[in-house]
């Protein structure tokens, strides 16, 4: 522990040098762009799909089929990103199932190099995130839907409203508070992109698009041994993400008390 105290009291104070270094460099803009862009894409797709799934599952009256689909739908949630990435990389490879399907359908003639070309990367991340979490996230909406008073639907159908109309005018407004809260909470996690999927799905060819704050800090810290710089970058992210999450939780609490109960 002697090392600990000496490093605490005898380290050279450099002020905000590493932060300045980070903010003034080109890397900052690139890394922030990748973080926010892939996060925003995930947020949009990953927010809408579970609602859609919950409505579909609620409409399905064949219980064993419903159970089968639901069981399968949250399988990806429980496997690690290591397994998920191995699967995704295989499916997206030039001789993988997705390219095969696209060629069979005549959508493309040559294999699309999904993981070698940077322009696809944010979409790959958004799709992978959604694939992994959609079944699990749909559960919350299913719970919200099952809490709706059935009489509302009955009287609507007596009044001659079709199923679609009932979904639009009764179901969606009823789960709106849940949607708003989850959306707000997701915005709070905009910077917490996760590390695994970027690290595992990205490679040197897509680096310009796959580098997010976490992987950037990892590369400089662990692989290039620039401890001080990597710490500054990591701390910047932790601090901003913390403020964002706390602010957003406050807002969500306000919504909860005024709209839900």
């Amino acid at each position, binding site marked *: 522990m002697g*090392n*600990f105290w000496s490093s605490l009291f005898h380290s050279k104070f450099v002020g905000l040098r590493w932060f300045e270094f980070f903010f003034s460099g080109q890397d900052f803009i690139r890394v922030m762009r990748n973080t926010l862009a892939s996060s925003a894409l995930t947020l949009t797709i990953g927010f809408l799909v579970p609602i859609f799934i919950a409505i*579909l*599952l609620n*409409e*399905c009256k064949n219980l064993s089929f*419903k159970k*089968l*689909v639901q*069981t399968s*739908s949250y*399988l*990806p949630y*429980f*496997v*690690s990103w*290591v*397994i998920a990435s*191995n*699967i*995704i*990389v*295989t499916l997206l*490879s*030039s*001789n*993988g*199932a997705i*390219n095969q399907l696209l060629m069979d359908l005549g959508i493309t003639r040559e294999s699309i190099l999904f*993981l*070698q070309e940077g322009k696809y990367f944010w979409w790959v991340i958004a799709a992978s995130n959604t*694939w992994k979490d959609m*079944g699990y996230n749909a*559960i*919350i909406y299913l*719970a919200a839907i099952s809490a709706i008073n*059935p*009489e509302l*639907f*009955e009287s609507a159908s007596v009044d001659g409203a*079709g*199923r*679609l109309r009932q979904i639009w005018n009764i179901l969606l407004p009823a789960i709106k508070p849940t949607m708003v809260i989850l959306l707000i909470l997701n915005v709070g996690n905009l910077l917490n992109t996760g*590390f*695994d999927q970027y690290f*595992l799905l990205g*490679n*040197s060819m897509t680096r310009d698009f796959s580098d997010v704050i*976490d992987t950037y800090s*990892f590369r400089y*810290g*662990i692989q290039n041994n620039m*401890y001080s710089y990597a*710490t500054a970058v*990591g701390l910047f992210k*932790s*601090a901003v993400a913390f403020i964002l*999450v706390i602010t957003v939780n406050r807002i969500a*609490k306000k919504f*909860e008390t005024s709209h839900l109960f």
Partner: protein
Amino acid sequence: MYMKNKIPNITGKVFVYLMLTILFVVTFFPFWNIFVLSLNEAGDSLRGGIMLWPRHFTFESYITVFHNEEIFAAAKVTILRTLTGVPLTLLNIALLAYGLSKKSMPGRKPLTLFFIFTMYFSGGLIPSYMVIKSLHLTDNFWVFILPGLVNVFWMLLVRTYMEGLPPELEESARLDGANDLLIFLRIVLPLCIPVLATITLFSAINHWNSWYDSYIYTNKKQLVTLSAVLVRILNQYQTGNMLSDAQQLAAGAKRIPVSSETIRMTVTVVATLPIIIVYPFLQKYFIKGMMIGAIKG
């Protein structure tokens, strides 16, 4: 029950079933595809087009994987850390949660806040690394166990559950002369079995899946976990083999039954298997766990 209302619209019904079938395929097929590829001859797989069934069936990659000492050792470490980590984590979480669930406990609020703070803020990668290093935990088996002993989110789940237990049980035990430890072991723990079962599953899956600690904190060959092996194989694939598909195709003419590719599939299948095995339990418990979590916010 509005459920009884038949959807009059046939197109609507078809649409619902079609979309749900697509959902099923999208979530299930990827796993099936990996499984099929792990059972197909490597050279043949490179030609592509393998979707639902192996074209040239072979067990060769499974035989190779189970005879590979490195993978075998990795599986051993992974099982060992799961068996060691889960009970210790459980014990720590239960003890801490019990203490924090007591209203009479001095400093309960600030202590709880102190723990919750760590859920939202961390020093980051390098400071954690420095701490691990100065504790001499690098290249040490216990680096897999100690840092994860308390998961605050799970601890809060258990605490909430304990707060919901009827206080009369403890009071009557106390009147009979039982001390805190006895009450904890004999009364509180048995009552908490449902929530502890949930956490056992979560913790076991976490240990089984983890690769990061092994990847960063250890260099020893004996301390590489199964997922860390998989990460390394994936990295090799991503950096080395990606552009050489054409070369591989040429090599594929020679009929190679096993390649690094099929090994990758096989290890992925092997690593997924335990998750599939505990899946029925997961389904039973995790929704409950999630609902408690949702209430807590």
